[in-house]
């Protein structure tokens, strides 16, 4: 075990941290916004809308993220129509393809989590809100969504960790985040085990921080669920 190499590699890998964090935050944010919409579509009474949402979630959850990434990056570029249109400036960049793949992925999983949260709101609360004459919009904003988010927080925390790990897969489409840089260094030093251990430690640290943050949010938002010590 070459500890000297591991210590040398650590700062080099940290330079990829910037990209990793960008990818996670942007895709989580966009994915979350889309997921609220997707969850509402899924719960809608309109068969076409809910069918669309169901199929979307089915497809994303049924295929590996790696396949989705390759399809978006290599697959879509094969079509002349895309290459000659204005969307090409988007698909041309590996960065945007990576964000798109991660966003679509997290949107599907998050929408299921939000849906679970929405469906767990006690019906009594909805009834009483309707009885005081709240409009549908007000009902969602004041009652359903706040309760749903609190219910969904632990599961969403899980999803955030999965997203941090998912960013390592975009190293396969030339993006130089932590895993991408790790592979570049391994190509020069031929010591995969040492370098992947350092990379693994970096991810563990990020995930530890995320877990702590989510725990803190849980405690702040749901003080009534805290157990007495």
């Amino acid at each position, binding site marked *: 075990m070459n500890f000297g190499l591991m210590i040398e590699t650590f700062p080099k890998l940290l330079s990829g941290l910037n990209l990793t964090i960008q990818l996670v935050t942007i895709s989580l944010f966009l994915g979350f916004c889309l997921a609220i919409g997707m969850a509402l579509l899924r719960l809608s009474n309109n068969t076409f809308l809910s069918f669309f949402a169901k199929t979307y979630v*089915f*497809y994303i*959850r*049924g*295929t*590996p*993220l*790696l*396949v*989705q990434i*390759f*399809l978006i990056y*290599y*697959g*879509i570029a*094969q*079509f002349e129509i895309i290459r000659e249109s204005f969307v090409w400036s988007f698909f041309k960049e590996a960065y945007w393809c990576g964000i798109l793949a991660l966003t679509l992925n997290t949107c599907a999983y998050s929408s299921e989590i939000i849906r679970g949260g929405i469906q767990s709101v006690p019906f009594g609360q909805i009834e009483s809100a309707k009885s005081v004459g709240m409009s549908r919009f007000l009902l969602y904003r004041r009652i359903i969504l706040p309760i749903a988010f609190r219910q969904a927080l632990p599961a969403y925390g899980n999803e955030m*960790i999965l997203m941090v*790990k*998912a*960013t*390592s*897969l975009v*190293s396969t489409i030339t993006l130089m985040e932590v*895993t991408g840089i790790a592979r570049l260094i391994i190509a020069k030093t031929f010591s*995969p*085990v040492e370098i*992947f*251990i350092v*990379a*693994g430690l970096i*991810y*563990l640290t990020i*995930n*530890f921080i995320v877990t702590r943050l989510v725990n803190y949010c849980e405690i702040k938002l749901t003080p009534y669920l805290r157990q007495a010590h």
Partner: protein
Amino acid sequence: MDLELLILGDKGWGDEMLRATMVTLMVSLTAMSIGLFISIFGTLSKLSNKLYLRLFGDVYTTIVRGIPELLVIYLLFFGGSNAVMSIAKLFGYNGYIELNAFVIGSIAVGAISGAYSTEVIRGAFLAIPRGQIDAAKSVGMNKFIIFIRILIPQILRYALPGLGNVWQLTLKDTALIMVTGLVEIMRQSHIASGSTYSPFTFYVTAALLYLTLTTVSNTIFNRAENWANKGVRRV
């Protein structure tokens, strides 16, 4: 999308893709079994009275669930042979030992699957009301009978949805073993798409193959859940 590329037989990649699907299925089944095997020890460790066992279980699940799967697979692939060789050196064997790609891939995905299964089974175990075990002890059942008659049926019932999720995860994680050279769906599509310069055709095919596997699994798990919940009133 060029369907000609997918002909079965020597002119097309169709048969290679189907063979790869079989390999994916085999690796997933092996990995899931290894994972369940590991999860029994994992759960026992995490629920044990001894601190070092609890620590060991916690460290295992935290590390394996906190590092990207790709890194776990790389580490086991490159480090695994080294580790086995160092152990063999202790016994005086100085040659090269190669664990074949199928075994390494299954162990790698199995280790990941085991960490998640441990959490599921632990949750299922904790969901069983303590009172049932006390009652069983009071009528004189020994540990083994309690395990078979009380724990297993209920653990199965509570754990099945979670294990269904872990199975889906395992199935999709096998796509990452492509780095070990094992020819499963992802690697086969990568080779084919490179050789024919038609990524769309092959990655769509790969997606459809995975979708088929997950849909069939879904149906099987739903049936199993219904069987395990016979006679139980559910929401």
